[in-house]
């Protein structure tokens, strides 16, 4: 169904375009990888590949709390935010897809508004609110905003998924005496699991990537996430460049995500497009 007709020349053209795309995608990632393996002296030789390979940058960052702690923060904050957002979004999406109640349009409108909301508009007021509530520089101080920004995405994807689930099964469960809550947990939730996995992946990617809140609502490594911590890296002395350690840290937070993305690519594509195109 793909190509209607393709001559060898067209095939060659598409192949060339494919190769070009892959190269353009790969170069910045390979450059980061190369920098992370360069010795401090070789950083300034501007060659694309290291002449001498070293693990020094990695052993440097992986033995300092300045990176390990933020890495653990990133994992913890990301997982907790994702878990809460998926649960809350599943509940709301189930209601949107299955139940008749007034205010549904309002909920969808609100989700859209938040999906399009400029986060910087919240930084100043939330900064002051978090200071007053003692949430500044704590895990919940990041988890709460991450859940709020993960919810719209989750509600969109999951309500699209929930609409595809056959009604009859839920009816049958209710006929057999299940309460609406049992119909939800015993029948619909297992069928909706793939949608929930997709949502979880996208929300986790968002949390892992987030930078503005991470630098605004934290002040030390007790709650600073990895991307924010990297931005505050400095050389071990003022005469050493932090380029090597920064590159190594950037690779460390990138490689798992690349593997993750490649592994779950179908789900990610389905999730990204179901929300935006088919509603």
């Amino acid at each position, binding site marked *: 169904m793909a190509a209607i007709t393709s001559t060898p020349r067209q095939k060659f053209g598409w192949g060339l375009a494919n190769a070009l795309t892959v190269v353009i995608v790969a170069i910045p990632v390979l450059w980061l990888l190369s920098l992370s393996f360069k010795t401090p002296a070789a950083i300034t030789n501007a060659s694309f590949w290291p002449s001498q390979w070293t693990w020094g940058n990695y052993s440097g960052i992986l033995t300092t709390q300045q990176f390990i702690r933020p890495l653990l923060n990133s994992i913890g904050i990301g997982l907790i935010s994702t878990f809460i957002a998926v649960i809350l979004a599943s509940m709301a999406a189930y209601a949107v897809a299955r139940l008749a109640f007034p205010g549904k349009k309002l909920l969808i409108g609100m989700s859209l508004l938040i999906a399009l909301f400029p986060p910087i508009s919240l930084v100043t007021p939330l900064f002051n609110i978090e200071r007053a509530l003692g949430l500044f520089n704590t895990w919940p101080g990041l988890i709460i905003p991450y859940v709020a920004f993960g*919810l719209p995405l989750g509600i969109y994807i999951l309500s699209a998924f929930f609409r595809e689930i056959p009604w009859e099964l839920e009816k049958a469960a209710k006929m057999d005496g299940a309460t609406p809550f049992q119909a939800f947990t015993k029948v619909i939730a297992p069928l909706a699991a793939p949608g929930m996995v997709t949502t979880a992946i996208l929300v986790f990617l968002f949390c892992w990537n987030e930078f503005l809140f991470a630098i605004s609502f934290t002040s030390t490594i007790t709650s600073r996430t990895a991307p924010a911590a990297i931005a505050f890296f400095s050389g071990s002395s003022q005469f050493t460049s932090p380029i090597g350690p920064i590159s190594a840290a950037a690779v460390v937070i990138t490689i798992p995500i690349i593997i993750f993305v490649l592994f779950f690519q179908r789900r990610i594509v389905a999730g990204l497009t179901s929300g935006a195109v088919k509603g």
Partner: protein
Amino acid sequence: MSTTTETAVTAPPEAPAKHRKQLSEGARAERRFGWLLCAPAVIVMIAVTAYPIVYAIVLSLQRYNLAFPNLRKWVGFSNYGAVLSSPYWWHALVVTLIITIVSVAIELVLGMLLALLMFRTIFGRGLVRTSVLIPYGIVTVAAAYSWQFAWTPSTGYLSAIFGNSAPLAHTVPAIGVIIVAEIWKTTPFMALLLLAGLSLVPEDLQKAAMVDGATAWQRFTRITLPLIKPAILVALLFRTLDAFRIFDNIYILTAGGNGTYSVSILGYDNLFNSLSLGIGSTISVLIFISVAIIAVIFIKGFGTAAPGSENL
């Protein structure tokens, strides 16, 4: 359904027909359950967005600097006067609009080419679909460092190729680098949204047009484009508003130096460098209004269907 529910609920407690009362009980229970399920999500979303934006409006009417908390007082709209008469605000707005318009325009063209590439090729399709997800998945900060180091004189391969140039040290080239970094990161997202639109175009139409002798370009402009217009508009809406709030790339690449600051960078600097909650909140509110204006232009002006609104 909804009308019967309405009348059932507003009916007096002793409704005459018994079966009707049962229906109303069921409908009421369903309605309560619906609200109950949505409540936690709604509460979190309101607590984190609606309440702070209202609070930002309140703060924007005050002179409130964390360095001088004792001088806090109500000043009406004078913060708005100060920001709107400041060349920094207008510079940031122009820089933001340039970055937004140029990057989204290029992304639309590249994204469309990439979507067609992913849709049409057979050989290596899986490889391309997989590889375009890398820029989408990579942490923006990590990618931004890659571009920054690539353009650092005597360190970067790109700088070396272009005669040891230092584009990040000058306004216009630096904005160019920021735009390239933005395009590299987000074109895949645009392409995936357009690809989903392309897959909805019936193949029969294309075949019929081919039989009638339409060229590939004619088929694209007369059949494909009109049919995927809704997908294009949604992708443009999302990407425009996303580009308008650009922060990470600029923060890493130039930190807003050399006149490359966007409105988001300006808002951040006002809070954390000047500690001015009043002015910072005023900028927050103005950015919010700008985003609302862009969204209204898209939805009312171009008729972009707000996703999710049509099939409730």
